[in-house]
């Protein structure tokens, strides 16, 4: 009984970790989206800089755009992966819950 209870708690903890991760990814996604929007409004001659460590390095607009697009792609992939893990953990939790209920009834 305590065994399955401990397992339930463990899975619940893992689920919470995934949900936190998902929220972090969402924040990153929104920030990158804002950057893309801002790039759209730039004039062709506007100089873009990237903060690398503590230095601002000039970058080409195309390069910056490519970078952010790639990052968006990556983040979206991570979100998909994370959502899948969340769903898996949720079904696992449900199964465990049913199991506990059954044991309690006996």
């Amino acid at each position, binding site marked *: 009984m305590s065994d399955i209870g401990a397992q339930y708690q463990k899975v619940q903890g893992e689920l919470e970790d995934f949900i936190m991760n998902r929220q972090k990814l969402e924040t*990153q996604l929104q*920030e*990158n989206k*804002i*950057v893309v929007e*801002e790039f759209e409004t*730039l004039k062709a001659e*506007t*100089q*873009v*800089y*990237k*903060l*690398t460590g503590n230095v*601002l390095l000039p970058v080409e607009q195309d390069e*910056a755009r490519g970078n*952010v697009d790639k*990052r968006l792609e990556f983040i979206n992939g991570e979100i998909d992966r994370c959502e899948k893990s969340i769903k898996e953990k949720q079904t696992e939790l449900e199964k465990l819950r049913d199991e506990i209920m059954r044991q309690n009834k006996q």
Partner: protein
Amino acid sequence: MSQKIDLTTLNPEQLQAVKQQFDQELNHFTQSLQALIVAKNKFSECVNDVTTISSEENKSQKLLIPASASLYIPGQIKDNQMFMVDIGTGYYVEKNAEEAVAFYKQKIEKLDRESVQIQNIIKEKTQSSMAIESQIRQAAIREHEASKKKVPAAQ
């Protein structure tokens, strides 16, 4: 939370649980609203800074640039119409004073819109929370009266 639950069908323990959940959500939204207000103030400061620095009397203004927390280097503003604006994720863009102010004002407007949304949610949640509270009270009264009736019957 789109599903509707008839509060009168819940027992006091369930009502407590629902209320707790609502209060938690309420807390979360209040915190979000606070964060939005903090961010908005930061952007407003930026607008003020840009307007101050780009004003005529600050042309070629001398200033001290912090090289570390306790070391300053004398400097001079070379161009008080150009600003480096952080647009997020480590990218910076050169903007003139007008564009920079427009950028920040746009951000502030966006935050304002979102604040209104959150305020509406908070209002709704507060009302729901109060409704649940009154249900809890009524449930308690019902229970109290039920137990009062029981006592004389037992005597």
